[in-house]
């Protein structure tokens, strides 16, 4: 009898232990499947997003508003050239490299909409499309007068506003997850409304004639980060949309690298045209008009890539040569 009672108790203990092990086994499977499903979903969205980026980049001067599921999209372009976008990157680790695409964006896109704007960068021939990405959750505040044209060309779907310097102190925190201040007439000053926001979520730029100064929030003031030379007005948009100086500078270097390659192709094309008209002279005397001006753009592009802080592109001569060729009915440079 006693032996039977002890046996029953041991049986129950055994059942409890076995049941616990089985439950633990299935719970661990569920967790592993969940994290695997998250990674799969992120990878699928990442592939679709890359296709969206490709499509948005092909059609210039267009605004696209893309509906998003409840995810965050991360963008990174750092000084060492590491450039990628990720879907819920911290949770899933899924990221896609952006080695050649210039995508100016905040470091995180949150919310259920994403706005993309594609603009062409010319020097003076088309080099590439620049993609500007943002979200309605990012607040853009233009302080002062100036840049009316650029401001009006920004998508209406963006959360943008224009104020005067005297109204800066009256700004209220509208609980946006990021705020970008664009100062047009004065050095950036941090409004009290944003002092409690995280340093990474508030930044400012000061737009001057040919340069843009970047500022990052350090506690309750703005600290200077760096200066970007604006060799083309389009690059001002890059400064507006970028998270910070580092990402803007990194993307601009990609543009100059691409400029170097495209200029090399146009330079070879110019030489091929000169050779053709040397071998097939006609009454237009075209061979005299190909002077190698495109080659100077190529040389400048290489210099700009090495030292983007001091960049000058000699596009005027190429434009003039092109116009002249058009007038004399010779094949144009571009």
């Amino acid at each position: 009898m006693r032996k039977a009672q002890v046996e029953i108790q041991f049986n129950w203990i055994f059942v409890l232990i076995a049941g616990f092990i089985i439950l633990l086994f299935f719970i661990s499977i569920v967790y592993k499947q969940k994290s695997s499903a998250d990674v799969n979903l992120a990878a699928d969205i990442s592939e679709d997003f890359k296709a969206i980026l490709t499509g948005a980049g092909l059609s210039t001067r267009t605004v696209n508003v893309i509906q998003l599921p409840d995810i965050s999209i991360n963008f990174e372009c750092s000084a060492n050239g590491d450039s990628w976008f990720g879907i819920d990157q911290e949770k899933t680790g899924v990221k896609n490299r952006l080695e050649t695409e210039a995508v100016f964006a905040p470091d995180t896109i949150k919310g259920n909409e994403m706005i993309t704007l594609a603009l062409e960068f010319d020097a003076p021939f088309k080099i590439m499309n620049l993609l500007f990405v943002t979200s309605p959750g990012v607040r853009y505040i233009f302080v002062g007068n100036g840049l009316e044209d650029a401001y009006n060309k920004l998508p209406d779907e963006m959360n943008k506003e224009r104020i005067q310097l005297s109204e800066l102190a009256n700004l209220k925190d509208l609980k946006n997850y990021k705020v970008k201040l664009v100062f047009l007439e004065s050095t950036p000053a941090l409004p009290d409304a944003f002092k409690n926001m995280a340093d990474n979520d508030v930044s400012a730029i000061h737009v001057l004639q040919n340069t843009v100064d970047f500022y990052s929030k350090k506690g309750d003031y703005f600290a200077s980060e760096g200066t970007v030379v604006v060799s083309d007005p389009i690059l001002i948009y890059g400064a507006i949309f970028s998270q910070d100086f580092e990402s803007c500078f990194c993307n601009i270097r990609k543009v100059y690298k691409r400029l170097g390659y495209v200029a090399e192709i146009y330079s070879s094309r110019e030489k091929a045209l000169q050779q053709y008209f040397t071998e097939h002279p006609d009454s237009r005397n075209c061979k005299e008009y190909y002077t190698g001006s495109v080659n100077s753009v190529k040389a400048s592009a290489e210099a700009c890539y090495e030292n983007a802080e001091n960049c000058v592109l000699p596009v005027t001569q190429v434009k003039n040569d092109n116009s002249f060729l058009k007038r004399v009915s010779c094949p144009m440079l571009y």
Partner: protein
Amino acid sequence: MMETIAILFIFFILVMFGFIFYSRISKESYSAEAEEITALKAVQISEKANFLTDVQCSMDNIPDEDCIDVYKLQAFSQLAAKEDVYYYNIFEFSVINITEIYPFSGRSWKMYDHPLPDYTDLVRVQLPVSLYYPGEDRYLYGVINVGVYR
């Protein structure tokens, strides 16, 4: 006690069969998805090749769609071979050939080629295109052949 152990043993064998079945189904579904991704990639690469600024025709900086400038193409072929790493980021493991088909001259240009080591398949896409000779100011018919290695 022995009965319980026997039941548990059979239970775990059944669970194991379930997992084997599930993993086989998953493997099939991943293969199908991989094929779909490769086909999508082939279309993406052909679109990129077709719209690539480096070779696209233009007149006073106005691009001419579905047109490739032959002088630019010749320069690009040499540049892509030299800057293979850069253009790999655009075209990945693929081969892009442009062939002149009318009037037929047999002329063909290898625009880009970066084979995948030990590839097993080549997913192909063809797109018609105009070929422009700027010296002669003449347009001919051609085809872009894009093959993505798998």
